């Protein structure tokens, strides 16, 4: 596949980064953003203090859970765009499981986590069934269900689950501290969350690359028709892939509710689902790269919060940079391909 030397490959990666930098400056310029100061604020914002690092890690957890989860359907050549809605559904199921409890402990938390994974898996199963039995492309079913999940959240927050007295965008009644995930020292990230994210990464790695199940999933992705002929049951496996991704996404939702916000609010998924898709594309869906790119994107997200305060810029810039980076990667990949084809033709 890649016959270029290591040096050449490094060269191409640098070209991609350079292009990304150039494009970022290009698009930030009309907003009147001073380029280097902006980049400084962005990167400093993520690492300048321990509490900031804690926040970066807190963002890394759900992002990694979603991103490694996405590797499973991607092995079957599926685009689980519905991951955003699955995070939301996980958060909803998690909150629902804790509604009867004013206070609790590890048992209730475990219950809530289980409920969240179930919620995410079921929501993913719905998108999967639409795809497998209804032949509705997962882009549409996923997206549609994302919006529906958001609608359900809004309805719950302003309806049955509203805070006594006033219903507001700040969400449901906050959970009692006994139902929070325990923190890592003074940092705002939970060690439970970190452990879950690392465990998920190892789990997905073993599942995809060290089991026959993973081989069969790869076969289904390679050629679904041949998979039928080999009696691999491609439809069943596609649904399994959706469900596993949904469960991990639901888990991400649970960490958001239990570890970060301690309640359900409209923006509970914080775009982690879509960002995880970008991470996957940037890593070309190679598992070892995923956690690191997640770390990078998470620090960009935290840093961007400073932008409105310090520079009067919109915090969407982090999203812009993430998008530009992945786009640059694709452009550079394309140029490599184009050059190689030109060489072969001569």
């Amino acid at each position: 596949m890649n016959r270029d030397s290591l040096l050449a490959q490094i060269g191409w990666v640098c070209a991609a980064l350079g292009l990304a930098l150039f494009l970022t400056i290009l698009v930030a310029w009309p907003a009147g953003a001073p380029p280097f100061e902006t980049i400084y604020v962005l990167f400093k914002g993520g690492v300048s203090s321990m509490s900031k690092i804690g926040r970066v890690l807190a963002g890394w957890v759900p992002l990694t859970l979603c991103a490694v989860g996405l590797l499973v359907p991607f092995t079957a050549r599926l685009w689980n765009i519905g991951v955003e809605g699955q995070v939301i559904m996980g958060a909803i199921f998690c909150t629902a499981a804790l509604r009867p409890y004013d206070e609790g402990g590890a048992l209730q938390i475990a219950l809530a986590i289980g409920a969240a994974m179930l919620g995410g898996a079921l929501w993913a199963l719905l998108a999967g069934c639409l795809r497998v039995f209804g032949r509705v492309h997962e882009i549409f079913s996923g997206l549609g269900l994302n919006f529906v999940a958001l609608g359900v959240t809004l309805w719950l927050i302003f309806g049955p689950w509203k805070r006594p007295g006033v219903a507001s965008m700040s969400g449901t009644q906050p959970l009692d501290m006994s139902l929070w995930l325990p923190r890592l020292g003074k940092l705002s990230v939970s060690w439970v969350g970190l452990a879950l994210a690392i465990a998920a990464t190892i789990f997905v790695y073993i599942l995809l690359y060290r089991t026959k199940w993973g081989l069969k999933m790869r076969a289904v992705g390679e050629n679904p028709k041949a998979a039928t002929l080999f009696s691999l049951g491609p439809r069943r496996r596609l649904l399994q892939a959706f469900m596993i991704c949904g469960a991990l996404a639901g888990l991400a939702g649970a960490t958001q509710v239990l570890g970060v916000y301690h309640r359900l609010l409209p923006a509970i998924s914080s775009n982690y689902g879509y960002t995880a898709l970008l991470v996957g594309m940037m890593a070309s869906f190679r598992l070892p790269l995923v956690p690191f790119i997640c770390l990078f994107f998470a620090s960009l997200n935290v840093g961007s919060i400073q932008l409105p305060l310090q520079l009067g810029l919109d915090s969407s810039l982090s999203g812009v940079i993430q998008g530009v980076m992945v786009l640059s990667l694709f452009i550079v990949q394309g140029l490599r391909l184009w050059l190689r084809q030109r060489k072969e033709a001569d």
Partner: protein
Amino acid sequence: MIVLNDIHKHYGRVRANDGISLTLEPGRIYALVGENGAGKSTLMRVLAGHTRPTSGTLEIGGETISHLTPTLAREKGVGMLYQDPLDFPAMPVWENFQLGAPKRSKQEVVDVIGELSYRLDACFLPDEPVSSLTVGERQLLELLRLLDLGATTLILDEPTTGITPEQKQDLFDLLMKLAREEGHTIILVTHKLSEAFEMADSIFIMRQGALVATLEPPYDEKELVHLMFGDAADGEVEALPELPPKDVTPRLTMRDTLFAGPKYSMGDLNFTARPGECIGLAGLDGSGQELFLRGLCGLDRMPGGGFDLDSATYRSNDFATLRKAGVQFVPADRLQMALFPALNLMEHITLAFPDKKGDLTDFYQSQCVDGFNLRAHPDTQANELSGGNQQRLLLSLIPNDTKLLLMEHPTRGLDAGSARQVWNHLKSRCAKGSTLIFFSPDLDEVLEHSHRVIVFYDRAIAAVVEGDDISMEVVGALMAGKSMEDIKENNS
């Protein structure tokens, strides 16, 4: 006059065309023969401007050109007709005809089609989508289009696959007329020697990318075969195995079976097959033979009727159940439908034999290398294998105790040596008791390797022929829709 000078076409390390030079004169019919993979189609695509040669030049009408484009080729009067016509199935006849031609109104196009159809005794409805035409009609439309564009050099790539013998005769008569009366140059690319003998004023023989000889009449078949296949020509094809006696439990009994596919359905199928039989299916594209095979293995639905496999009755055709019961289906399109392109051989073996645990290296050795002569490293990916090796891999993945083997075109794209090996293997399976039902668009192949032939016409079984009736005349006529009585009458 057209001259090809030292044409090379390389795809990476593969030399599809290795320094070919030949001359084509107007008013003559040439045959370009060679087995699958010899490089004939590639060379013609260079001539038609559909591919650029790696090096070499073309001389057309005195002018030397390094390469052609489709537009340039049209200006020079060169047109190519593919085996699977390169047209637009969803678009109507008149638009298919007009695309690529100088601007004309719809009415003008309709008039031209009408006139050409009248001259050649054909009938085209201008607003019908091309997908509603048969392969033979689509070919004829393409030919008319090329003639309308002013083509004086016509290249036909394997034109007789998938058309009835009658349509073939009409086509050949037309080509004769074009060459003798209008002075066109005709090049017929084929792997069938009989056609070359029948039509050609001169035969070019290609083997493994090179032009090995040019022959003039009178033709010596032995010499031709030897030049085409080299030493591989001396292989022997085994004879059809003997059939078990008639009172043995039949392998397959179909009772009023109804199969439904995505495009059409086919019903009231009644047929019985014995263990060890080789049954060939014949018919034009879309006549029902594909649905027949796919229905029997469970890939297409069976909403009505049922069938027996040995003594077990099946009222529903679930693919997995039938596969466990010993029904195996092998599609024609190996890489698209039957193999996993980026997975390697070991992984294919692991997937095909899920009951075998542990290290499968020994099994691979015995099954693939020793059993099927598949000489490739187990780490090779399926898409890196040659066509012949892909077919060997596919066959090695079929369990030895398969009862009913259903194959769509067993030797598609294979060179003669590989094709022979495949047939010898299939016949040995039949000798051990498996029943084979296969289809091939190459009628000769069907006739040669079948105990009985089921002929399909218009989505139904026209007839089941055996013995002396297995002949080009009878089967060809049945494929075209004639009834058995008419054929018997004509013969007597």
